[in-house]
């Protein structure tokens, strides 16, 4: 019996989908059997980030409505035999699925997979409720911005009201140089407000843009700093004790990376 984890944030654009893709690929690389569910019905992205868009035949709504079997809708990843994606429908909206149906679906999938990762849509309406319904645990993604932290706080409140396991926090897109200058919220400020367990800190990394556009998760790239952070997070998810990555040596690294990628530094 596996575990279902929802990745959510409240605010849009903070990296829920990127985080889902990277944790999925990272856990699959570690040999786990993983299913990713895109719960963002009507604005699906996870398939694109995973580079699997052209393989979609049936989707989550088809499964829930009984039009397709789960095994036919699950798309096997290009890179890993043990990584599967259940894509969202693009031509429908959040009301096509109910929390009860999601709970049943996720419960069914947990029997076959070690981890079921659910990519939640932004917002706190039905899409969020659907995504959260079947999950045992939650990961809240927040960026070091006041608005993102505010929304994360709201989400944590909603999750606590559901009496789920206390959510974990991933701080995304932190820039050590800006934190140093006092231009960006630092990790301690955020943890002080949100008061949940920190699962990891992902540095801002230009390579994420490249990897998202190419459909290749950054976690598989040994040179990506964000990829390293995601690798650490996957190890922590499996119960390992991994020290937090040092963030203050990034300027040299980024320049090296830029040169490597052919960008002007």
């Amino acid at each position, binding site marked *: 019996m596996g575990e279902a984890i929802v990745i959510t944030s409240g605010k849009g654009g903070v990296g829920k989908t990127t985080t889902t893709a990277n944790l999925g690929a990272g856990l699959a690389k570690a040999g786990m059997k993983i299913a990713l569910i895109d719960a963002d019905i*009507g*604005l*699906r992205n996870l398939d694109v980030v995973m*580079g699997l*868009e*052209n*393989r*979609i*035949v*049936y989707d989550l709504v088809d499964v829930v409505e009984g*039009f*397709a*079997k789960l095994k*036919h809708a699950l*798309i*096997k990843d*290009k890179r890993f035999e043990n990584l599967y994606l259940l894509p969202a429908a*693009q*031509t429908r909206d959040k009301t096509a699925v109910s929390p009860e149906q999601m709970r049943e679906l996720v419960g069914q999938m947990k029997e076959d997979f070690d981890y079921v990762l659910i990519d939640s849509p932004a917002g706190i309406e039905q899409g969020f409720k659907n995504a959260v319904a079947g999950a045992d645990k939650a990961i809240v993604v927040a960026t070091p911005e006041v608005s993102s932290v505010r929304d994360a706080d709201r989400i944590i409140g909603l999750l606590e009201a559901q009496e789920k396991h206390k959510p974990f926090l991933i701080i995304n897109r932190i820039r050590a140089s800006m934190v140093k200058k006092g231009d960006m919220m630092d990790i301690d400020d955020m943890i002080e407000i949100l008061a949940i367990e920190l699962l990891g800190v992902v540095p801002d990394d230009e390579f994420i843009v490249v990897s998202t556009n190419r459909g290749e998760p950054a976690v598989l790239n040994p040179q990506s700093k964000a990829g390293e952070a995601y690798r650490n997070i996957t190890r922590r998810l499996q119960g390992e004790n991994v020290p937090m990555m040092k963030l203050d040596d990034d300027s040299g690294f980024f320049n090296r990376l830029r040169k490597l990628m052919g960008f002007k530094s």
Partner: protein
Amino acid sequence: MARRLPKTVSQGDQEMSPAPLDSGALIPEDQIMAESPSSPKSAAERSILPSGPDIAKVFAGDRFEPRSARDWDDEARRHPTLLIRKTLRSGQHVRFYGNVVILGDVNPGAEIVAGGDIIVMGWLRGLAHAGAEGNTQAMVAAFRLNPTQIRIAHFIGRAPDKEDATLPAVPEFAEVRDGQLIIDQWQHSMLGNIK
């Protein structure tokens, strides 16, 4: 004749192992966008074209036999075609039991499901399913054919994973030939030769 085979994907079929689409299941009667032409009305009542003998003159050149307005009405009923004058964007979809013609583009994430043929007078980058009720003779044509996925009846082909840098800048069409989905260049001599 230049033929670009591997844009279609036999390997995809194995990976996806799709169940055959139930005949007609994709287009339930209550989901079709347009009603079938209501039968009792005469052509004169329905048409904004000149009615009566005049309509026959329009088409009656050397190559066509003169036909009455009623004949054309029957023709339209046998081959209903939906004309859409807009670009279909992500999440928008058209389901029609007849043919579909798009005057515009079909973007990634948009879907057309048609019982008959699909013609896109622009870029086809989304998903097109022709012959959705099982008609393997159906075809998909576009000025620029670069779809995420093409389906004809129960055949499925998907775009290659690596960006195909050399998308030919010519109109192309997809059809089922010898049990395989094929993409081929649109030859101007093909008009009238399509099955």
